[in-house]
């Protein structure tokens, strides 16, 4: 029996297949479909200190092998999350990673502190902690926060530093494909004490409604995900995982066990499944087994054998 258990940023995962932020809610919609302990972990929808209503107008739009979304970080705010959603997430028996957004460095830092405190408190009471924070400096769908911080290394450094100071939880930084210099950005995060990197977030994209003669999205641009972006994401994961020593979580268009192996061979320590959850609502129930079967078929006994082989 092939074991897929692995360690990521000091956290023990039953397998390296995580569910990506924004595509899995807080787990509940899928918990009705299959037991979530099949998953390596769940990354929450992006959370900010304050609740946010998100964007108006069209929010999801399909393109050839892609999905453009303009949700705009709609979320109930960290306090509400901690009160109303977290408890239930703990029952799922899988790692919980909180995706952290913010409109200012201060909001990021305060959010991180709130999560960290709540997590410490919970642990003290013998309950589950938040396993990691995934710092999102790469959301292309909000005016403030998000991409504003993810393009330039020096601006990003301030956020990473502030959040690193605010939390002792394992910290992942989620990078944007729009970073001016992706490997420089990655090395900066490593130097600032990030425990791992997640990439890629969606790629800034556009769709025009030629009948209405306007952008499909009220926010003009939005973020492209799905199989269309896989070859780009794979290249970036390869580049970054060869530039740093901390683990890299590969994200972008993954839609099969084959895709997962590609990302692991490119150097990823783990992967996240996003849009594929929509293409196949029960993807999370099946992928672990499918990965194991594929590995058996290819004579691969453990992912360590092939990680970063290329």
């Amino acid at each position, binding site marked *: 029996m092939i074991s897929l258990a692995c360690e990521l940023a000091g956290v023990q995962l039953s397998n390296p297949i995580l569910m990506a932020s*924004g*595509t*899995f*809610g807080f787990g*509940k*919609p*899928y918990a*009705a*479909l299959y037991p979530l302990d099949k998953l390596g972990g769940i990354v929450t*929808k992006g959370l900010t200190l304050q609740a946010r*209503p*998100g964007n*108006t*107008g*069209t*929010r*999801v*739009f*399909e393109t*050839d*092998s*892609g*999905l453009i*979304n303009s*949700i705009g970080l*709609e979320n109930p705010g960290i306090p509400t999350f901690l009160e109303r959603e977290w408890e239930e997430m703990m029952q799922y028996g899988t790692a919980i990673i909180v995706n952290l957004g913010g409109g200012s460095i201060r909001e990021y830092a305060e959010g991180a502190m709130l999560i960290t405190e709540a997590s410490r408190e919970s642990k003290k009471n013998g309950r589950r902690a938040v396993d990691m924070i995934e710092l999102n400096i790469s959301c292309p769908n909000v005016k403030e926060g998000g991409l504003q911080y993810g393009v330039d290394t020096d601006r990003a450094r301030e956020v990473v530093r502030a959040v690193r100071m605010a939390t002792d939880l394992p910290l992942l930084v989620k990078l944007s494909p729009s970073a001016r210099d992706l490997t420089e950005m990655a090395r900066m995060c490593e130097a600032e004490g990030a425990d791992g990197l997640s990439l890629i977030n969606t790629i800034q994209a556009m769709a025009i409604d030629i009948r209405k003669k306007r952008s499909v999205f*009220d926010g003009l641009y939005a973020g492209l995900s*799905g*199989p269309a972006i896989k070859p780009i994401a794979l290249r970036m994961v390869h580049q970054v995982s060869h530039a740093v020593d901390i683990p890299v979580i590969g994200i972008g268009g993954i*839609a099969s066990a084959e895709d997962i192996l590609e990302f692991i061979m490119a150097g990823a320590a783990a992967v996240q499944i996003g*849009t594929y*959850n*929509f*293409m196949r*609502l029960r993807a999370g129930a099946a992928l672990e087994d499918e990965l194991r079967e594929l590995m058996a078929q290819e004579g691969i006994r453990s992912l360590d054998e092939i990680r970063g082989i290329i």
Partner: protein
Amino acid sequence: MANVLVNNKLAPDIYQLTVEGEYHASMGQFYMLRCWGAFPVLSRPISVHDINEGTISFLYRVSGTGTRLLSQLKPGNQLQLEGPLGRGFPEPEGRTAIIGGGMGIAPLLLAARRLPDSRVFLGFAGDPFAVSAFHAIHADVHVVSGGTIADYVEPSEYDTILACGPVPLMELLAHRTKGTGAKLFFSVEKRMACGIGACSGCTVRIDGVNRRVCVEGPVFSAGEVDFHDLLSL
């Protein structure tokens, strides 16, 4: 996976798809349908048209890639369906009108079946389609072609109105119902990614609060729907 029994063309671009299985859904709920692999990316939301012993059926218009693929299904082919999803029409109180415009009649056959005491109004811009099924199961069905079906219904005569159709029709009904005491519920459409409440892609602003069409809808009380969000489909 379900087995396709029939996939009949009822009118130009209008198909009725029936698959095998015991399904339980309330009127106005929908399923995410899919009969393809990775392309197109998303499954398609389609309302429950009818349920009978051992079968469920859908009424749809071919309007793009996904519905074209649906229309190519042959008996014996397999269809993936996830559902029933969303919240359908509430059990109506008092005198009830069921009003459908065009493709909006799709979710109303099940409603007509379950509400034999209602009055049913079906309006079409051109030739009516799929109306014989309504006549077959319901005594009080009014079909109108051309004009707007809203002109044939006097809202004040009803306690509850269940409706589905193009946004302008819904706006008109909302307008005419205001102040009559009748409660208007309608089923709305918005682009969906997950269909199960995970992505927040399908929100509509209601009373200033975001509601996800796929879980809190697709049926809403007409009250405070922000039509801008709907129109921006």
